[in-house]
């Protein structure tokens, strides 16, 4: 076992982990309780476990917890007050952007990054940028509509501000 410390959703956490423990398993454990992290493929393909490490999106299933010693980790639980995340949640609701909901936390985290980085994406670019998150209900039309709606509102507010 190795002792690591990280900042989880703004709070300091110190835990003992086995080197083979993924960050996803650590964060989902009762001590951390971040069950918004969903484990689909567990080899970095499906995107359901996407979180932020030091402010950048990452797959928590293929990040080893020991390798995140000292990192700042944010999950969907930590974005409850985040304005963009709230907009995206509302847009997913309005545009039927989820069916079973398993992929939704990862979709929201990825969409937040995509929209924040470049709100003026074409639909094709948006689909490519979101392609790392798989929806097994195949509900992509609603998801793309939701993310597009938030991107368009931000793009227009950027234009009017400038």
């Amino acid at each position: 076992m190795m002792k690591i410390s990280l900042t989880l959703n703004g709070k300091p956490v110190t835990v003992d982990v086995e080197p083979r423990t993924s960050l996803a398993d650590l964060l989902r454990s009762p001590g951390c309780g971040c069950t918004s992290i969903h484990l689909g493929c567990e080899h970095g393909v499906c995107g359901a476990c996407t979180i932020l490490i030091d402010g950048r999106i990452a797959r928590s299933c293929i990040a080893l917890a020991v390798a995140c010693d000292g990192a700042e980790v944010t999950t969907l639980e930590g974005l409850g007050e985040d304005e963009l995340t709230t907009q995206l949640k509302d847009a997913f609701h309005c545009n039927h952007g989820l069916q079973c909901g398993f992929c939704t936390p990862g979709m929201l985290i990825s969409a937040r990054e995509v929209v924040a980085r470049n709100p003026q994406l074409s639909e094709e670019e948006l689909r490519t940028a979101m392609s790392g998150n798989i929806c097994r209900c195949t509900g992509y039309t609603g998801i793309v509509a939701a993310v597009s709606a938030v991107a368009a509102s931000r793009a227009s507010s950027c234009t009017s501000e400038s």
Partner: protein
Amino acid sequence: MKPAPFDYVRPRDLGEAVAALSEFEWGARVLAGGQSLVPMLNLRLSPVLRLVDISGLEELRGVEEDPEGVTFGACVRHGEFEDGQVPDPARGMMHHVAGRIAYRAVRNRGTIGGSLSLADPSADWITVVMALGASFVIRGAAGERRVAGSDMFLGPYSTALGEHDILAAIRVPKLGRSARWGYYKIIRKAGEYPMTTASVVLDPDRGRSSVVLGTVNRGPLEMARMAAGMQGAGTWSAQLEGNLREAIRLDLETAGRDQDSCEMKLCETTLLRAAQSALVQ
């Protein structure tokens, strides 16, 4: 939890990292970004007894630029190329390629050195750095040595790196002002591993042209006749395309690659599209 148990070491410098690898005759692996290695651990594809985590070593994250080229520390992440946080000696080629590796979440952690050390034959960087004439700085128990791009990649998942070696840096020469490049990959779903990749670099100032092909099941292939056929080419034409098709056929034949397969068609298409994109930039 999916991987089998392993030992984990976080060295303070490159010397300690090499020493930590050398304590095991085999089975110690270097962890850089972990975006290929950790999936392999999760799937228990290869036995690993110890991970030596070099991702925090500042000496591997540096970038040095001089008039002739840029030396990238092995732990520079794909996302840093994508975001323009590091200089691009290849007039936009490295930026272009990096932004299309896997997905953003992977590019934020995956490193150029990790990708090249693993030498997955269908990964993006190998053909690019070979076409750019890159060389590699390798650190081992006996000290540091340099290896040229053409001597680095021996086959799928096989490189000049020994069991206890670490790729420390990648040296990429600067392209001349009139240089052109093309990169193309055939991919079934955005972000997945390509089926075929091709890099074309035409650098008249340095009198150099290079074409490198990547496929899923063989090592990278330098397409010497095709590169010669591209030298001095100005614009895309039906005649040039015909000449290049013949050059590709001869290059693949010389390398003993199957001429009639679907793979041959994929290779030809990938190479021609990379060549075309170099000329229409």
